[in-house]
């Protein structure tokens, strides 16, 4: 069975047919995506499904990955953080290393194409070092919130962006003024991935029991890194405010271990201290490939929280909505695009706000179920990978025929 056929079962044959019709208007366009890794991280995950789906749609799509030394990846990790506005220090030699690496990769990679999508800042300088005429159009796909970057990092990255004909950001709030068009394509989830696919009841129950969670009692869940921006202490505070009214309530905070992140380790210590000896409050440190475990936890929760105070798009919210769970989320970033009061959950601004909404949702099972159904349909309409792919195809058509008026393709 082809990949697209499997998605037909989720989004319906008409949606997949529309993708085929849009793609047919692009012919056998040669498209190359370039990023910095073939596995691990959100971008590699997206390209992992996007390349084969584009190929199935008849586009001549391929995926190139830049190579670099450990020192290069140290520099680009710092650039990545700086682009998100974290305080960083980079020396002129670090910026030079970035340029030099991209010069070498431009020589090595097969970039001959009608359109090259360059993902994130690591390969951003490829256009500068690629012979003119080899690439029809360059498009920079920035997956990061670049709205308030570190100044020195932005000065560096901005020079690269000048060589692009267009950019793509996930949300308007993540952009900065640039001289080329800034298309908007929100991210999406793959409904057939291990993280989101339907699980058997046996697997779900086996997972929660293995983790020491009582499947018969209500479970609150937050899945996120142990990071101050995700406000895990605020989640614990909200849980404690509700617990006297719902003594059987359980809370799970699930995230990855923070071995290589000093600040993450510190936050994790504070979270552990705050959790104390409460047997109903579990901190789970899961390996990065625990997709099915996360899936089972999300399906077992009665309410999912994402009480961030600063957030990117918040795909954990999308995942929870897809599983029919109401979400209580911090009013920031992409959470505000997904959580709509009384429709898919509630936006909150404090632990007290979260506690109030938890009590409300625990009290009204019918509203909880209705929000769950609405959230599931909302994600089906707006945040599945078929929509993501459709947006890419639409962008490609726009690049072919720039203008303002309606385009009949």
């Amino acid at each position, binding site marked *: 069975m082809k990949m697209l056929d499997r998605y037909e079962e989720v989004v319906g044959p008409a949606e997949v047919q529309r993708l085929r019709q849009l793609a047919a208007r692009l012919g056998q366009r040669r498209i190359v995506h370039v990023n910095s890794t073939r596995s691990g991280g959100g971008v590699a995950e997206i390209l992992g499904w996007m390349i084969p789906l584009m190929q199935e749609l008849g586009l001549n799509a391929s995926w190139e990955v830049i190579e670099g030394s450990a020192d290069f990846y140290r520099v680009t990790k710092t650039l990545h953080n700086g682009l998100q506005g974290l305080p960083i220090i980079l020396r002129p030699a670090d910026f030079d290393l970035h340029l030099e690496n991209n010069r070498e990769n431009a020589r090595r990679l097969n970039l001959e194409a009608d359109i090259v999508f360059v993902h994130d800042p690591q390969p951003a300088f490829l256009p500068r070092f690629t012979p003119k005429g080899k690439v029809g159009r360059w498009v920079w796909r920035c997956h990061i919130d670049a709205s308030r970057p570190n100044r020195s990092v932005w000065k560096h990255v901005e020079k690269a962006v000048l060589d692009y004909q267009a950019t793509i950001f996930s949300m*308007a709030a993540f952009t900065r003024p640039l001289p080329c068009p800034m298309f908007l394509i929100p991210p999406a989830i793959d409904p057939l991935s291990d993280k989101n696919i339907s699980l058997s009841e046996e697997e779900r129950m086996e997972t929660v029991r293995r983790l020491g969670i009582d499947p018969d009692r209500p479970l609150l869940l937050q899945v996120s890194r142990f990071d101050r921006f995700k406000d895990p202490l605020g989640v614990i505070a909200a849980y404690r405010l509700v617990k006297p009214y719902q003594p059987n309530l359980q809370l799970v905070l699930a995230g990855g271990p923070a071995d290589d992140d000093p600040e993450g380790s510190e936050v994790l210590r504070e979270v552990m201290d705050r959790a104390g000896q409460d047997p109903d409050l579990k901190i789970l440190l899961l390996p990065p490939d625990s997709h099915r475990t996360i899936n089972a936890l999300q399906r077992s929760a009665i309410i999912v929280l994402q009480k961030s105070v600063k957030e990117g798009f918040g795909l954990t919210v999308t995942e929870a909505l897809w599983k029919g769970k109401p979400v209580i989320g911090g009013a920031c970033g992409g959470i505000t695009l997904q959580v709509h009061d009384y429709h898919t959950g509630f936006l909150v601004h404090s632990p007290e706000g979260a506690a109030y909404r938890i009590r409300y949702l625990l009290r009204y099972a019918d509203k909880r179920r209705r929000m769950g159904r609405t959230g599931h349909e909302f994600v089906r309409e707006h945040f599945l990978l078929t929509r993501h792919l459709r947006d890419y195809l639409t962008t490609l058509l726009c690049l072919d025929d720039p203008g303002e008026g309606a385009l009949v393709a």
Partner: protein
Amino acid sequence: MAYVEPFALFDCSLARQAIGSSCSNLRDLLEALRSAPDTVLEHHMMRCALDDHFELYEFPNDLARWCWDALGDRLLAEQLGLVDPYQHPSMASVRSVLVNMIEDRLWGLERVPWCRPGLELHLISSRVIAFDTGERLGTLAAFAQALPGMSVRSLYFHVHESRRRRREGADDFSTWLELIGADAALVNRLRAVDFYFLNLNQLRQEFIDAFRYHLADPNILLKVTA
């Protein structure tokens, strides 16, 4: 009666672009309305219907919603919610009404309303990319059967976009139904639907209800929607 081509069903997608500016307060919004390209006004006043999903969404355009949710200016939100851009001959006319409304509001306020950080209105421009789905509906019954399964984007293209595309300001559906000699009462009912104040799912339901009422055999629809 002259031969009438079957109805050609189109679908559409929106290509959205950030223009790199945002509004934090009512004065910013006024400035944006004065200077932003028409495509920005079109997006926030009309094409935002394609982002809409929920029933009972209070307002039909982004500007009214932002004034209500982010600025907390309920009076202005109510006024903006009532501006129906499809009743205006041009975007210049819509712009003039909006600017006048906000100038008037600012005139009467002692303090300019601001939003909390994170709730800014990020200005977006958009473009409709329409394409022929290849589906052809040759009879009233075929049309009625297709309606429940039509994508909201097709509805947007044939109802909202059509009002701007066609000089006479009608939707594609009723125009075609009139051409094939459908019941005038059905045609008139479809044209009378206050489409701007409905989200696209509600609009589809209104149309289904109209067909159900006027079709000789309403079971055609029942069979599909059951």
